[in-house]
């Protein structure tokens, strides 16, 4: 272990030795270093948001044929700092009749729920907050706390629009958790573990090749969990002002804002970890710091797709969104789970007889899974085609398009 290849573990080791020298017991050293680690992870998450807010606004601008933030610093990269200072100076307004404790608790819950996710994400083989053996379920548990924050924010504001936003949040966030969990079970099945880091170790071939459908379902339902376009019905400004965050001002609004951006980045990190191989890449095992680079390259790639979808898609209607979830994603996820389980078991039974070499085995397995996924996709497309809207129901007689009245004779002549 040296400083160049694995700085984080090196510094942690150094710090532990130093604390030990001072005279702390082993348990105290562990507690202190874990607190420092958690603090640094939180600070890192928030600093990352400062960057991603700028990145997203810049991309937003470019795609809409604008320049985007361009005044503060080179390419406007420090634009977020003046925005932050501005939001710090704003007044806190608490609406009359608001439930004060709940009202103030809600933004904290919704940010901390997102930040808690980072505890189990492995940045590199050795750089991981805590390698829980139930990491995947932990992700679900933490996600549900975020939903709680949104609901409480909507209810405690004593505002009808906020309450409608909260109702939509329950309908959306809670129901999209179903396909999300089902899709998450597929990597668990393939990797035969629920620890996030061991799932990364299991991805000799990235899971996106083994389970593209699961990756799609997971990505889509994660997008819905973040509550951003095209799933931003929680705060649809043309319908319900700003939804659950209508009554929040100043830093409390800022927390929701930061939470949303952090959440968008977090789902990118999750997709990269669970389906794109996380820190896996050339020489990542020997030089852990390279793993961090691979991880962030993949994460930013996914994040770019997230931003692209947010910018280019129109908002769905609430019934379309729920139909999409319950009538398409959930059945597809269930079918995919069953198919994957059978294919995996069948492959495990047959594979000893095939006489494959150790290096070829994962690739053959990936091929078999990819084929089964393709079959399911083709069947799904056929079923969808048979249900497509064949003709628009005519509810009234066609009326002529507005025709300009005949000009008076004097004009013609």
């Amino acid at each position: 272990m040296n400083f160049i290849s694995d700085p984080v573990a090196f510094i942690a080791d150094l710090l532990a030795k130093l604390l030990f020298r001072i005279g702390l017991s082993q348990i105290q050293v562990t507690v202190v270093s874990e607190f420092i680690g958690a603090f640094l992870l939180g600070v890192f998450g928030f600093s990352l948001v400062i960057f991603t807010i700028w990145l997203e606004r810049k991309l937003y601008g470019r795609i809409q044929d604008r320049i985007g933030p361009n005044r503060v610093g080179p390419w406007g990269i420090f634009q977020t700092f003046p925005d932050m200072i501005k939001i710090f100076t704003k007044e806190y307004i608490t609406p009359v009749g608001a439930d004060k404790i709940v009202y103030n608790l809600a933004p904290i819950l919704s940010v901390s729920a997102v930040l808690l996710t980072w505890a189990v994400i492995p940045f590199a083989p050795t750089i991981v907050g805590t390698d829980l053996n139930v990491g995947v379920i932990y992700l679900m548990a933490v996600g549900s706390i975020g939903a709680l924050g949104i609901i409480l924010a909507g209810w405690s504001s004593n505002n009808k629009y906020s309450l409608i936003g909260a109702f939509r949040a329950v309908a959306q966030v809670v129901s999209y958790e179903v396909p999300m969990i089902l899709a998450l079970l597929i990597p668990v099945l393939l990797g035969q573990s629920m620890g996030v880091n061991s799932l990364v170790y299991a991805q000799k071939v990235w899971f996106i090749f083994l389970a593209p459908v699961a990756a799609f379902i997971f990505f889509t339902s994660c997008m819905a969990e973040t509550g951003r376009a095209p799933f931003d019905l929680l705060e649809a400004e043309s319908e319900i002002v700003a939804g659950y965050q209508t009554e929040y001002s100043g830093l409390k609004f800022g927390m929701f804002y930061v939470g949303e951006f952090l959440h968008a980045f977090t789902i990118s990190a999750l997709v990269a970890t669970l389906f794109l191989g996380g820190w896996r890449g050339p020489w990542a095992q020997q030089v852990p710091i390279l793993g961090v680079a691979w991880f962030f390259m993949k994460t930013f790639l996914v994040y770019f797709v997230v931003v692209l979808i947010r910018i280019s898609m129109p908002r769905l209607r609430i019934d379309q969104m729920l139909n999409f979830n319950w009538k398409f994603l959930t059945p597809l996820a269930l079918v995919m789970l069953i198919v994957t389980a059978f294919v995996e078991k069948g492959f495990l039974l047959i594979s000893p007889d095939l006489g494959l070499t150790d290096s070829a085995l994962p690739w053959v397995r990936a091929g078999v899974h990819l084929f089964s996924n393709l079959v399911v996709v083709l069947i799904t497309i056929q079923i969808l085609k048979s249900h497509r809207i064949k003709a628009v129901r005519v509810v009234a007689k066609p009326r002529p398009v507005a025709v300009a009245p005949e000009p008076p004779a004097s004009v013609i002549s």
Partner: protein
Amino acid sequence: MTAQQIIFLVVAAVTLIAGISVVTSRNLIHSALWLILTLAGVAVFYVLLNAGFFAVIQVVVYIGAIAILFIFAVMLTRRVMQDTGPQSNSYWWLGALIALLLFAGIALIFTNWQGFKALPPVMLDQSGKLVQLGLSLVSPDKYLLPFELASVLLVAGMIGAIYVAGEKKQ
């Protein structure tokens, strides 16, 4: 007193206070929030017992699903959210008696139980424990029958919910 005991006592106190507040709070949403705190306290107990899986499942199922549904149901009843009437009726002594009897029964069982003095069995490694749990849930000579019965019960509940909520075809 070890650190673990201090944590246990603090969490136990918080859980009990939250549990009492569930029934004494006049605001239904506050009751639901206290309930969430109680359930979170139970999750911490699971962590203290070295059962991380149950802790996480507790949070997913009870806080993530059940408590949120409670809050959702309560939010739909805005008018009666503030309960102003008396908090107990004339049969309060009966409830107290039953609760006391139940407590006495549980206490009696626990005083005769040898498990307090016995040393905890040697733990397998965490993932091994999970595998064992999963296998014993589906092996016929262990808990297959209760497991399947619970599943049937849940399916029955689901069908009932769909029947109640679904449109009646004339």
